[in-house]
């Protein structure tokens, strides 16, 4: 491809005469790139200094949606956290699981949004915030739900998930209790019970 020579502003071959405006614009671009770069790096790990900078840059990154929040930049590390999740409602007298989220075309944006919602619920459960998790799930309860129905979030096995991953208890399990024409979602404190069962039996005096 040949070089062009007909220019009207800042001709080719002749170096641009840098003005104050150029310097200000360049400085702004460099600050923007540093902030964006730090936001991306923060999804992998965050130092205390980075956290402070991110707090300061938060309004800029949020208002423009230039920040990455919690989404990791690397697509996958093949860990348990990368396993897909399902959320279903089940009955003790039926083997059928009814998904609480509509089926979507795998791998498309709609499918990704469902996974991000389920990941948000799981992170609330992990942070010991079951009432907040229930708040996100409550609107998904179908009209046919009955008292005592069980809501379960499962991690689906993948080619790389270990036997331990596949047999570990679901990250979230709760049952429905009808309350004043509304539903109350009560989480089963499974992990705590498991921990309690590991304690040694008390010995007789």
């Amino acid at each position, binding site marked *: *491809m040949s070089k*062009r020579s007909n*220019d*009207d*502003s*800042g001709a*080719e071959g002749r*170096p*641009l005469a*840098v003005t104050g405006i*150029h*310097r200000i*614009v*360049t400085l702004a*671009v*460099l600050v923007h790139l540093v902030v*964006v*770069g730090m936001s*991306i790096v923060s999804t*992998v790990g965050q130092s205390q200094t980075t956290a402070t900078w991110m707090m300061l840059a938060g309004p*800029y990154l*949020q*208002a*423009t*949606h*230039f920040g990455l*929040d919690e989404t990791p*930049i*690397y*697509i*996958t*590390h*093949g860990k348990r956290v*990368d396993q*897909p999740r399902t959320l279903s409602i089940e009955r003790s007298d039926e083997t059928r699981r009814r998904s609480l989220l*509509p089926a*979507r*075309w*795998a*791998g*498309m*944006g*709609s*499918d*990704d*949004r469902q*996974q*991000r919602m389920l990941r948000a619920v799981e992170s609330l459960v992990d942070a010991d*915030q079951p009432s*907040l998790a229930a*708040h*996100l*799930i*409550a*609107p998904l309860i179908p009209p046919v739900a009955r008292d005592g129905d069980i809501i379960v979030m499962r991690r*689906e096995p*993948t*080619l*790389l*998930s270990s036997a331990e991953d596949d047999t570990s208890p679901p990250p979230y399990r709760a049952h429905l209790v009808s309350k004043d024409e509304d539903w109350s979602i009560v989480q089963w404190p499974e992990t705590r019970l498991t921990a309690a069962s590991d304690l040694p039996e008390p010995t007789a005096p």
Partner: protein
Amino acid sequence: MMARCFDPVARWWCTPLPAHAVRPIRFALAVITAAYFADGMVDAGDWFGVGQTHSSSQIAEFLSLAGIGEAVSASISPLFLTESTGVYQVYLGLSIALALGMAVGVGGRYVKVAVWLAVVFWSNRLLWLSGLAETSLSLSLASIAIAAETRPDGGRSSSNSGRSTSNGLSVRLLAVQASLLIGLTWLGMAAGDVWWDGTGAIALNAPTTNRTIDWTDWLMVTTVHDVLTTVLMVLPPLGLALAWLAASHRGAYAGLGMLWIWAALLALFGSVWIHAAILATGSLAIVLTRDSMVPSSSPTLPQ
């Protein structure tokens, strides 16, 4: 002294580029944005309606209960004002029309800014439902909105290439941002064991229930997943180095080709379709930052 160090940097960023450098990028980004909004129409009815899990009132109540309202206070979007799914569908429809307008070059910078704002408002409304695609799209559209793309003589002279500082700044910003995204994606990947033990390609496709194409049968062949994992790890640094630094045009195009292959593999195995397409478009911008590689005209693309 300070100016002597800083001026070469400022010169690189602000050296004008012709409008031809911007057009293919603008066209590609506009088509990707239209596809992104079309995809949003599929499930807008699942989230934002009255009583639904991501409706404005549900979100407000959730943020108040969690005490994190302050943390997301800058996620501004007019879409928080409505719970009518019809309004969301109309918003997405109009955004698609704007993106197509941007593709054919209607409205100049105003339409490009409008498309960027449409993406920002939609992404901000999604809150924790948004991901990589929204951020890379917002960054790329903001960069391309800087470009004036106009001919100072109003297009009367065929010799006028519409050179401007805004075009140069726009293409370079897009190129550097794309390099940042690609480079940090690669570094982030390198922190995972799967990218060193040859199973990275399997990991990418492993959640097959969330992947558009299930490549399990192919990936179970040891040679295939080992080679693919190596290719996925080698292409980003090599492609970036060649696209930016190769002395010859052929070398730069080879780098671009490597980055496109990498983006295609990410899309095919990881189903990150929109994000990969944006990275591929950003890679094209790297090559177009070289004045000598900008096509002299773009007869097939809208002026």
